[in-house]
């Protein structure tokens, strides 16, 4: 009976008490977790297919058009529908929260989640209805190959991706307009001061002044460190949106000409040059904004959890700038198996500059750990657990990446399951999502006005199933990769059967974990509350002025 009550009414959640900023944040969070469910189901379908004879699914899932359309939308739903949505929501809430200034525009924030949701749905429909399957890397000229794919599918897919990118531009505008607004604490700051702080130049100057024995350049930087990370990561978000959108426009032009009966010559675009351009942009997601946003989130979480200043804050500020520069120069590690790629680019961009990511991410890990260590003893709250899980994820995935970004290793690891499982899925599922879950648990009381979670037992079950499932799937998939199993390849005859069954068991753990998490959330806010989140807010406020220090008090044991 009580479960039924919770299902309808939640614990103590009252959607009418939420202001506009809280509501728009929660709308995107809800969509993000629904998309996560979809991505996990798609992932599990692919996982099941490659178990071969053990595959319990109907035969149609093993058909190449079906299988690869799923593989095409899976990362679109995962990266954009779920991750982008969640990160954007968190940052559009956090920037006003940390700067104590209102968000530039709630309307724009609503447009962001709507555009990303509709765009993701369109891309999904293109794959589901027309089986458009060029995969998310869009290697030229596959996305314009109308012998294999229907033009209409391609057009709908590209419109979907374009809407997602438009939503991304909306997010970027909202963030910068909020940061540069000269109101509240920034009333007396100049744009130049905010820019210097945003790029971390004040951190570098502080370090330089310390070395030369001068007083600090700025005692109290204009922007808090997590805002600097958001500022910096958003530069990459902008650049990658420009690249993805322009590649989309190119594909669209070819498809439209094809539909009009005057196909253009695909050989007019150099495939390797295109690959360089597209990977430069796409890599700004993986090695740019993800790493920078994650480092910033770790710093924020460590300071909020401990209530203390970040260890070596000036170094952290300067490192974020370094990370931005590094992220622009590492794309060649995706082209180490491309023999036409100049050797110097492979060596410098693909190997040497990429190796810097070990330094920048290792530094972020170190600073976070020391900040936590200095504040001992701490209560092992859910947010701390997830933060440690996130650190494990990147602790595993970054060295895996450095190993494969090597001309010797890449020859035998490129395009194998090692890359997509031991590196990509561990980085995303364990590293990134665990960090995001930690942020969610920290922000939950603030965004929901202290709504009680239905069950801490369910939270714990989610944590362990998710952590073990995430690492397990990455590990077994990675081992299959070392045994020669390719990624983006269809194996339906049980070729890597044992490892694939183990990976599928771990994938199922992730799927069950997601369901348990969702159940916990629904039982906390109730179906009525869930619907209420999407109703207009009575309080139009676009800020939330709670002091961050109050969060730390809950973590002292």
């Amino acid at each position, binding site marked *: 009976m009580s479960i039924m009550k919770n299902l309808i009414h939640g614990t103590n959640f009252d959607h009418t008490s939420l202001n506009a900023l809280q509501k728009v944040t929660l709308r995107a969070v809800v969509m993000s977790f629904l998309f996560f469910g979809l991505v996990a189901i798609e992932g599990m379908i692919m996982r099941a297919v490659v178990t071969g004879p053990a595959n319990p699914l109907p035969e149609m899932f093993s058909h190449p058009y079906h299988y690869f359309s799923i593989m095409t939308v899976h990362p679109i739903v995962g990266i954009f529908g779920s991750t982008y949505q969640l990160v954007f929501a968190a940052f559009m809430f956090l920037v006003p929260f940390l700067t104590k200034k209102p968000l530039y525009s709630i309307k724009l924030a609503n447009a962001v989640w709507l555009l990303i949701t509709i765009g993701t749905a369109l891309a999904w429909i293109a794959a589901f209805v027309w089986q458009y399957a060029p995969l998310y890397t869009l*290697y030229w*000229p596959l996305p314009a190959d109308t012998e294999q794919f229907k033009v209409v599918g391609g057009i709908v897919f590209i419109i979907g991706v374009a809407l997602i990118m438009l939503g991304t531009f909306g997010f970027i505008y909202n963030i910068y307009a909020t940061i540069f607004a000269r109101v509240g604490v920034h009333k007396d700051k100049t744009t130049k001061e905010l820019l210097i702080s945003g790029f971390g130049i004040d951190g570098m100057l502080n370090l330089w002044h310390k070395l030369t024995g001068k007083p600090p350049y700025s005692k109290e930087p204009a922007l808090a460190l997590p805002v600097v990370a958001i500022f910096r990561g958003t530069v990459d978000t902008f650049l990658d949106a420009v690249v993805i959108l322009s590649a989309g426009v190119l594909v669209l032009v070819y498809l439209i000409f094809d539909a009009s009966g005057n196909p253009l010559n695909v050989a007019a675009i*150099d495939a390797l040059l295109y690959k360089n351009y597209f990977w430069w942009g796409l890599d700004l997601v993986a090695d740019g904004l993800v790493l920078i946003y994650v480092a910033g989130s770790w710093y924020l979480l460590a300071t909020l959890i401990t209530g203390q200043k970040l260890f070596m804050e000036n170094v952290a500020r300067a490192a974020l700038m370094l990370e931005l520069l590094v992220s622009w120069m590492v794309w060649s590690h995706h082209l180490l198996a491309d023999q036409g790629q100049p050797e110097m680019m492979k060596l410098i961009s693909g190997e040497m500059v990429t190796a810097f990511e070990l330094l920048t991410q290792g530094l972020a890990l170190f600073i976070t750990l020391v900040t936590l260590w200095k504040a001992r003893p701490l209560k092992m709250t859910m947010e701390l657990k997830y933060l440690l899980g996130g*650190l494990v994820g990147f602790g595993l995935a970054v060295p895996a990446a450095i190993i494969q970004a090597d001309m010797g290793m890449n020859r035998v690891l490129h395009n194998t399951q090692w890359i997509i499982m031991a590196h990509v899925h561990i980085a995303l599922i364990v590293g990134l999502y665990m960090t995001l879950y930690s942020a969610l648990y920290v922000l939950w009381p603030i965004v929901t006005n202290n709504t009680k979670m239905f069950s801490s037992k369910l939270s714990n079950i989610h944590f362990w199933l998710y952590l073990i499932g995430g690492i397990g799937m990455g590990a077994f998939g990675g081992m299959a990769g070392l045994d020669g199993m390719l990624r983006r390849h269809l194996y339906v005859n049980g070729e890597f059967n044992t490892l694939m069954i183990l990976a599928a068991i771990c994938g199922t753990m992730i799927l069950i974990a997601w369901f348990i998490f969702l159940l916990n959330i629904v039982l906390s806010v109730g179906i009525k509350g869930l619907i209420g989140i999407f109703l207009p807010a009575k309080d139009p406020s676009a800020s939330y002025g709670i002091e961050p220090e109050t969060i730390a008090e809950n973590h002292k044991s």
Partner: protein
Amino acid sequence: MTFSNSLELLAFHETAYTIYALLIISVIAWFGYNLTRDKKADSIVRIPFYGYIAFLVAGGVGHHIFTYNAIPWVSQDITRHNIKPDASYEFEIAKHKWIGLPKKITIQCGQTVKFDVKSRDLVYGFGLFRQDGTLVTQMQVNPGVDVNGILDSNDMLWTFNHNGVFDLTSTEYSGPAQYSEDGKKDLMLVKNFVEVVGCKEGGAK
């Protein structure tokens, strides 16, 4: 230390990375446990900041120096345009079909062979696999033409040090048409494409 084929390298890599993975998971678990303890835990090791940074730099750079010296195909790849191969094979791909592919290639132990593959339409891959499914070597095959309309090369040198029979298939996704409609057949798979003979070791299964 040198690796004479990819199997040896991958076995080494699997062991080294597994040890590392267990170590980092244990360190964070130990760290998490001690975060909550009232009693101040004695650090097992004190890691000086600059020592840690030096370790990261040495790890990042040292890894490439190690592989350059231990993996023979790295320097061979970089200088391949100055190396005269013992044999060369050139073929093309169009519409998911290999064109001009020799029926079978027989290679004497220790020979360095050049593969030059050209694509007339899409991005493909070129990969050789042992009978147990493990990967011998691979490269990407990009389409493209030069100013004279000649197809771009995607060339690779490989020295074969172990006996074995290897299958060929594309290692890059080029659309669903690579497979039969029911997904059961890889239409670009060429069984027993390469045979290496004359080695003392049959290291490759």
